[in-house]
């Protein structure tokens, strides 16, 4: 891949940060946007805007077609069996809340167990916690090992006859560990348990094949995939979407509305109440094209090289301690520096235009487990280079210099 050419497709990289070139190492938080995506939003609003669905006028029909085209593109991109298995949401968080709410209310009762992992982002824990409060559902945690991984065995250990849902991340946003989803799904299904995958970090960085993974639910965050904010996707097997009750009620999701009763619409409308993030959905088509133009295999190879170079570079730096050492690792490196709090690291790096994240990365359970109040995290995207990692390392050395004065 020609990274300089790719970088030139992202207008943000022409901006200086504190008079330095931007070294953006926070893609696990949110990725930058290629111009094609930004332009698509502008073009839609300036030349093609209409709400979708009901109206029969020219613009409405055209907008509806564009919106539905994205659904088909997503279906193809993740190899779902049916386009109706793609539900647009306001984010991956809403996608998980949708499942916790509908599946939880219908199928979970007091004493039933939801099995998550110690790696989970708060968005794949808090929605289940609501069921713990409202219905007395139990939440079990598959343990993370010292390498920052959750293995199939550690999942298996926590499965009981009460386990009614397994909800796991595809790729940890802290340790970068990639979980063996296909194996987890096989194991879960052999015991009749459905599987939800938090694919926030998986979707931008891995090749997705829903029919191969065979998971029941997969949550996607579009803004981490070079797409617009305010948009997420829930993939769910059709049988679940047919069987489960609707999530939010409102316009667009109904069949017939009478004074004494209401019937609900067919898929996918059943789960898309109200005016959706139309412009974002239409622009997300460009994000998918962008990813496919580069090729997911090329992206995976590029990011693996970056991650390995990053690991190597930071391991050589004596003051840095890397968090976790997963055998199968995505484009995320979390670290600490002895004697310097991650927030101080982030502030000092920022002065050099190096954008990283510091804190608990919405994974307090994991940080408690590791006994760390916070970590610093560098995460990569298609536009990053080895030079970015060298700059990161140089900035880390500057932190040491500032703090070693005392």
């Amino acid at each position, binding site marked *: 891949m020609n990274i300089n050419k790719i970088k030139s497709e992202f207008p943000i990289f022409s901006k200086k940060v*504190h008079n330095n070139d931007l070294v953006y190492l926070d893609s696990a938080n949110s990725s930058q946007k290629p111009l094609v995506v930004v332009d698509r939003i502008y073009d839609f609003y300036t030349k093609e805007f209409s709400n979708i669905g009901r109206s029969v006028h020219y613009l409405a029909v055209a907008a509806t077609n564009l919106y539905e085209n994205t659904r088909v593109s997503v279906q193809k991109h993740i190899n779902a069996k049916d386009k109706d298995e793609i539900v647009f949401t306001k984010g991956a968080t809403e996608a998980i809340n949708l499942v916790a709410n509908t599946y939880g209310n219908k199928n979970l009762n007091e004493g039933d167990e939801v099995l998550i992992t110690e790696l989970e982002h708060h968005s794949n824990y808090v929605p289940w916690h609501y069921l713990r409060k409202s219905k007395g559902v139990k939440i079990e945690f598959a343990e993370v090992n010292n390498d920052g991984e959750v293995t199939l065995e550690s999942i298996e250990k926590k499965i009981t006859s009460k386990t009614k849902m397994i909800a796991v991340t595809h790729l940890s946003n802290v340790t970068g560990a990639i979980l063996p989803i296909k194996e987890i799904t096989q194991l879960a299904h052999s015991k009749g348990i459905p599987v939800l995958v938090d694919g926030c970090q998986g979707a931008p960085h891995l090749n997705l094949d829903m029919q191969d993974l065979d998971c029941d639910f997969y949550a996607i965050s579009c803004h981490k995939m070079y797409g617009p904010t305010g948009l997420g996707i829930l993939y769910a097997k059709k049988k679940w979407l047919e069987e489960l009750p609707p999530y939010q009620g409102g316009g667009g999701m109904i069949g017939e509305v009478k004074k004494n009763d209401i019937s609900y619409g067919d898929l996918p409308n059943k789960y898309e109440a109200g005016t959706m993030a139309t412009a974002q959905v239409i622009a997300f088509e460009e994000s998918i094209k962008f990813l496919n133009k580069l090729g997911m295999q090329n992206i995976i190879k590029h990011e693996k090289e970056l991650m390995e170079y990053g690991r190597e570079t930071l391991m050589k730096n004596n003051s840095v301690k890397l968090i976790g050492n997963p055998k199968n690792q995505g484009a995320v490196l979390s670290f600490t520096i002895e*004697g*310097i*709090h*991650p*927030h*101080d690291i982030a*502030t*000092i790096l920022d*002065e050099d235009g190096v954008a990283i994240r*510091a*804190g*608990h990365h919405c994974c*307090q359970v994991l*940080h408690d487990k590791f006994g760390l*109040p*916070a970590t610093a995290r560098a995460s990569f995207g298609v536009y990053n280079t080895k030079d970015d990692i060298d700059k990161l390392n140089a900035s880390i050395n500057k932190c040491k210099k*500032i*703090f070693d*004065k*005392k």
Partner: protein
Amino acid sequence: MNLKELYQELILDHGKNPRNLKKTENFNKDAKGHNPLCGDKVHIYLKLNENKKVEEASFEGSGCAISMASASIMTELVKGKEVNDVKELIKDFLEMIKEKNALKSNNLSEDEKTKLMSLSGVQQYPMRVKCATLSWHTLTSAINNKKDEINTEKLD
């Protein structure tokens, strides 16, 4: 933006070797504070005598250099002061940090002023203001016997 102003030697010194980082024995006022966004935590302990003078002040907690230095300097400064003077000091400090006002207090020694001013570099870093103010808000809470934990996200 100026890193040298933010990470002055005084801050780095207090951040690395915080003074009064302990639990005061026989404390009679205390309060906890928390910044949920970054995870910084602080627990302030005060021992006031019958004349409402701060005899001892200390803190426990963890956080970045700015928050540790701020708590360290704060506990040094309030020791020996009467509660009303402490309240004025808190007001002055918060105005300096948040409103970017000059330090008004006339009751401070030059050394005390230097210490307080060392935290003023935070003014240029909006994302770090709460690191500096957490322990001061928590001190107010301790003085006023507020039982609820201070949460920086619920403050202005």
